């Protein structure tokens, strides 16, 4: 109390001003590019080439964007991308989280080399692996399928999923799990009733990460597909020959799902329980 009254009267207000300007700057950092892309996508041919730019949403309509969506292959590749990202998220959590749990809770022979091995999967550039992968994918019948792309993206996301979830499970006190065992849970029940709810924010963050990895990946998707392209691979081949407002529309379509996805899971991203038994 005495410390607060000793500071100048305008100190709290200037402090608040600082906080709010920081928030505004951060919001602008994210929102302004999205806004400009959206303006380009919705402004149509005239909007894109208009000069000087007003920066105001005049003369926009959903029409140019719908036209883009209706053009050949866009919708299909969008769905392909969603499919591949979905497979990536599900598989990397389903396989990565148990691996992370094992790394966090058990000590076993070769634990450190296992951890290193997990990381080593990222040591080989995809470019080197592209040809053999294509050959074996053709043999396995996975070539030019969404599943194939999803699998490759899982390989990319899995090491991070395992290592990140390891850290998350380490953050869940062991005593809580033991308490669950004592009070009637089997190991599996304790995992789902106690560990998973507490680890949820971290697991969701991992899912977001896996989603973004898959959604943004373009090289493997381009190499491994011909007709069933993902959105990034499709846009890469098509956009260079497209008019400007089509490119903006493509950009907007790439941004939107990530934003929607993160917005949908935002609740789980924050540690609402504040894991702490101290």
């Amino acid at each position, binding site marked *: 109390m005495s410390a607060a009254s000793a500071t100048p009267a305008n100190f709290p207000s200037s402090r608040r001003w600082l906080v709010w300007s920081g928030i505004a700057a951060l919001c602008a950092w994210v929102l302004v590019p999205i806004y400009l892309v959206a303006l380009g996508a919705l402004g149509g041919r005239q909007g894109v080439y208009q000069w000087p730019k007003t920066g105001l949403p005049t003369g926009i309509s959903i029409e140019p964007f719908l036209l883009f969506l209706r053009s050949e292959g866009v919708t299909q590749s969008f769905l392909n991308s969603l499919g591949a990202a979905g497979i990536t998220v599900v598989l990397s959590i389903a396989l990565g989280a148990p691996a992370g749990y094992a790394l966090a809770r058990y000590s076993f022979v070769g634990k450190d080399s296992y951890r290193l091995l997990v990381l080593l999967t990222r040591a080989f550039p995809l470019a080197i692996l592209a040809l053999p992968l294509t050959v074996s994918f053709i043999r396995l019948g996975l070539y030019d399928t969404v599943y194939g792309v999803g699998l490759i993206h899982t390989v990319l996301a899995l090491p991070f999923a395992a290592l990140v979830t390891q850290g998350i499970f380490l953050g869940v006190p062991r005593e809580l799990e*033991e308490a669950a*065992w004592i*009070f*009637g849970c*089997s190991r599996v029940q304790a995992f789902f009733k106690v560990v998973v709810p*507490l680890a949820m924010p971290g697991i969701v963050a991992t899912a977001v990460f896996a989603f973004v990895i898959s959604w943004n990946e373009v090289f493997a998707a381009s190499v491994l597909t011909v007709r069933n392209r993902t959105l990034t691979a499709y846009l890469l081949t098509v956009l260079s020959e497209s008019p400007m407002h089509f490119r903006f529309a493509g950009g907007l379509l790439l941004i939107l799902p990530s934003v929607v996805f993160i917005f949908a899971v935002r609740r789980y991203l924050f540690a609402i*329980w*504040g894991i702490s038994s101290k």
Partner: protein
Amino acid sequence: MADIIIDRVQKTFAAFHALKDVSLTIGDGEFVSLLGPSGCGKTTLLRIIAGLETATAGDVRIGGKTVIGLAPKDRGLAMVFQNYAVFPHMTVYENVAFGLRMQKADDARVKAQVERTAGLLHIEEYLDRYPNRLSGGQRQRVAVARALAVEPKVLLMDEPLSNLDALLRLEMRTELKTVLQSAGTTTIYVTHDQTEAMGLSDRIAVMHYGVIEQVGTPVEVYNHPRTRFVGGFIGSPPMNFIRLPVIAGEVEAGGQKLAVPAGATGEILLGLRGEAVERVSTADGLPMHVRVAEPMGSHLLLTGSIRDQLVRIVLPASETVRGGDTIGLKLDRDRLTWLSPDSGKAYPATP
């Protein structure tokens, strides 16, 4: 309700013997403390009983049946952890109800039990809250309520009060004793705090380096320690040990002739509780050189030396002694412990 028999339990971690052949029988409804310094194996023993750790050898029987190989949930016990371990993602109500829900108890029974135990531990007001909005003391109450709500046959407590501040600890200790006395559950209580163990227990098992050194009621353990370690660990101030020469089956302590147990020759170790003395004139008693005198209010604590050996002596608060004084002490014959200076073990009490 159940008795617990711990039969020659051993536990090794790699080359480290955490428990060496520990045996202990705990009667139905009894409150037994495992007391010892950190690293003595008391928590390991508790975790073996709980099923959180597996014994390298030996048997644990609860209610006559061996529990070796059973999962913790199938042992019919409840536990209170040192760090409370209340589930942060559940309300206090759901925390207390957790064990019953896992037993698939119907809602009416859950509600009745939660309200009963919440009442016992005075947490009715917090039932809707999440644990992160509770203080340490309140969380520990929730943890105890959760354990009692399942009406366990056996209750295990692992240093449940060590994370609380001193005042709260005293309050919770009294309350625990009240609650557990009425519950009548067989309880094993792990602690390194001898006052907790003394205050709460029917019997205390003092552990040291993976061995139970002595089992007995608080008064037995206090007055008749079986080893030098037990005497030194229990009591505040700890027991004093004074080496004295034995001459013809007796030792001479400032005019007092004290008979020593048969078989003691050469030297003997006298175990002397700080308050088992009476102040007499310097000429008549065992002389003690007082180095520091601390008036504690309820008593006077003296630190000094007898025959050049460090001792702590407790006198009534009415006495006046200053540092540098020499005083005479008369020993209370009935409250002395005689130990072998080599093995540190007590001689059997003289009849």
